[in-house]
């Protein structure tokens, strides 16, 4: 699938109707989502035929992108039932097979390393301090091959458009600079590869 085609399909997904500030809910735009998954697949082979988990999936954009790029199985995890409802509908509309689980990431009970790749756009930690680190910590325990994550810090080419969703955004649209990170989990000692 071409990048443009992927971006276009993701652009049709429904997003949060009433985003919750305390959960730092905002959509992962099709521009950034398509490029994240395209990189993961074409540069690193981390998506097609793999088991992919989308942590803090929200309306399911990253998971949907993974499925569209040939992930064998996608699991979306989020704490909020409304988002999961939208994510389920998005998956159905695109005829994608995605399993969803409602859970608080910091309490996730998960066995072993069946999941190959975790993709995520975690909360930045502006509302609940350290939220992004919590997500990273769990992701690295769950993924056996790679974790792709967006974090706010330095200025790079990847920019993130946040339309004025919340009242306290003064400007109409706020660009937040984010970095895409690829983490590779360490294998635990004594584990047979």
């Amino acid at each position, binding site marked *: 699938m071409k990048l443009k085609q992927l971006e276009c399909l993701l652009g049709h997904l429904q997003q949060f109707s009433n985003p919750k500030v305390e959960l730092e809910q905002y959509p992962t735009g099709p521009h950034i989502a398509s490029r994240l998954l395209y990189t993961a697949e074409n540069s690193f082979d981390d998506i097609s035929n793999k088991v992919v988990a989308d942590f803090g999936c929200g309306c399911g954009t990253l998971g949907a992108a993974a499925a569209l790029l040939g992930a064998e199985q996608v699991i979306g995890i989020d704490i909020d039932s409304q988002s*999961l409802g939208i994510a389920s509908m998005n998956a159905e509309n695109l005829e994608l*097979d995605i*399993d969803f689980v409602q859970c608080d990431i910091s309490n996730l*009970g998960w066995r072993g390393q069946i999941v190959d790749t975790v993709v995520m756009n975690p909360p930045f930690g502006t509302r609940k301090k350290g939220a992004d680190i919590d997500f990273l910590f769990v992701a690295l325990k769950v993924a056996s091959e790679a974790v792709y994550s967006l974090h706010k810090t330095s200025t790079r080419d990847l920019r993130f458009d946040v339309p004025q969703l919340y009242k306290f955004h003064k400007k109409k649209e706020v660009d937040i600079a984010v970095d895409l990170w690829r983490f590779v989990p360490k294998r635990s000692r004594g584990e047979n590869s």
Partner: protein
Amino acid sequence: MRLLTHNMLSSNIKGVTNGFPLRIEVEKVVEKEVEINHDFLRNIFPKIDWKAFSDASRIMGYVELPEEAPEPSVLESDLEFLRKFHHALLELHLEEGALVCPETGRKFPVNKGIPNMLLHEDEV
């Protein structure tokens, strides 16, 4: 929720030593066909907890899987086995029901295929 996902989920309630596997209570199972991928099945097979998986498939109403995990060599040539493995792993969905913590008996409801694993305050 497919059995592949069930094979990864465990109960993380405070005090529980081994929350895996979650027992399944079935109210509604739905079958959805998906294309088979033999290589994927061969790769995932060693990562599956077979006992949990075959027990779960039986509860979901599918009795074709052997109780003991077969030798990996079976997956190389036995297409019939691969088809059954594929069917149980990826085509059976628990739509309505519950997942039950094996130690505390606490039920995590499953609605519209989505398990709710949120813990109460006293379980964290």
